[in-house]
């Protein structure tokens, strides 16, 4: 395997176009284990960290730009970002140890294609967009359209994600991400739930996004739970509907981390808790916030 470190997007797409099999990487926290396990044997390893756009984090008028290779530690340590998007920041911060946090990235977490990727439900509820570069130019697509199945993405062989665009959190809106793992740290989600809720002046839910991870081949949106919330004050009855809808939306596997029945049950419980947490944050975010 050869190693290339292009210093511009154009140079990188050129390297990809000229390679029979290339593997782009940022922190390589998933790529190295896959190579060692014999699941990948690319001709060339393309390190994207030499491209400045991929390590850029900027807070702009209408949105944040977060470079796809930015270490997640940098996001969790950014107090402006973390106070605006506590759910997304916490989800990104759950990925592995400090050693991993200094290497792992939103772009890698997404493109690895794991159904259990913690940052993905949190990105999707926040409507995050991916700016994709490739040989035929650049395109901007919702994060929800990148992963098509375990380990599979909609990106062409010569494409990679440059950065994410994250619109500022609207007023009276909060996000949350909760996951369950079999121990207290350093594990892969049995269930992950991302929620974003907007409240109106009367305290009723005016917008809701609920996305589950680790319970199906890809993330799962729960429109029945979203519909149950919108237009209503959150109460026990509504939360019971949210839980039941989240459990019903699961299409999980049985594995060493949890059975099908367990994952469904936990998805319902976590969805309810995440809605309450997101609503609490929404109530605290006043109209002056960006």
């Amino acid at each position, binding site marked *: *395997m*050869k*190693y290339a*470190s292009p210093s511009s997007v154009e140079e990188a797409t050129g390297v990809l176009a000229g390679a029979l099999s290339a593997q782009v990487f940022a*922190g*390589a*926290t998933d790529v*190295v*284990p896959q190579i*060692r396990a014999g699941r990948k044997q690319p001709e060339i*390893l393309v*390190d994207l*960290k030499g491209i400045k756009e991929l390590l850029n984090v900027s807070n702009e008028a209408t949105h944040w730009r977060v470079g796809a290779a930015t*270490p997640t*530690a940098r996001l969790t340590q950014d107090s402006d970002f973390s106070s605006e998007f506590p759910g997304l920041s916490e989800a990104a911060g759950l990925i*592995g*140890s*400090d*050693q*991993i946090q*200094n*290497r792992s990235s939103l772009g890698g977490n997404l493109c690895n294609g794991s159904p259990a990727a913690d940052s993905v439900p949190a990105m999707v509820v926040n409507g995050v967009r991916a700016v994709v570069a490739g040989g035929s130019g650049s395109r901007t697509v919702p994060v929800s359209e990148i992963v098509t199945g375990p380990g599979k993405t909609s990106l062409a062989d010569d494409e990679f994600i440059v950065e994410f665009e994250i619109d500022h959190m609207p007023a009276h809106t909060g996000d949350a991400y909760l996951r369950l793992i079999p121990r207290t*740290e*350093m594990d892969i989600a049995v269930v992950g739930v991302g929620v974003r809720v907007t409240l109106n002046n009367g305290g009723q839910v005016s917008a809701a996004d609920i996305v589950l991870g680790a319970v199906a081949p890809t993330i799962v949106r729960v429109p029945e739970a979203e519909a149950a919330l919108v237009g209503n004050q959150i109460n026990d009855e509504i939360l019971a509907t949210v839980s039941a809808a989240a459990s019903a939306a699961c299409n999980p596997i049985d594995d060493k981390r949890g059975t099908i029945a367990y994952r469904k049950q936990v998805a319902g419980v976590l969805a309810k808790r995440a809605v309450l947490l997101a609503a609490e944050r929404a109530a605290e975010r006043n109209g002056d916030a960006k």
Partner: protein
Amino acid sequence: MSRRHITATINGDEVDFLAEESSSLLNALRDEVGLTGVKEGCGTGDCGSCSVLLNDCLTCACLVFAPEVEGGTIVTVEGLANGGELHPLQQCFLEGAALQCGICTPGFLIAAKALLDRNPNPTETEIRYALAGNLCRCTGYDKIVRAVQEAASQIREA
């Protein structure tokens, strides 16, 4: 197989070495530079025994490709002692018997140094979270946590 010439500052010294392009930093440090304090446990970023500071960031050397460190700065366990004088963390690990077989120890020392560099007075909980990426099959962790607490206290008083 093509070998690349790489220059990096390792434990304060500028070092040149040759490594295969797809070689891990872990293998390059051990086999090319001779720094065998960096241990291989899992090779997949789970156990932390190959922890190094790369450009001041705590990192598993097994997850880094050797050419990535061109022009960079690396600190390994060999860089902790000051001449013949052990770093307080090393001294406290010794005195507190915070190791048995010792394979994980260099990684724990580096991860603990990374913690104390940014937080000189960590709580027990903060220490346990900061060391969550380092696995030890011998000690049960308690003596390691106490050694880090003791070293932190000595460094603060120094």
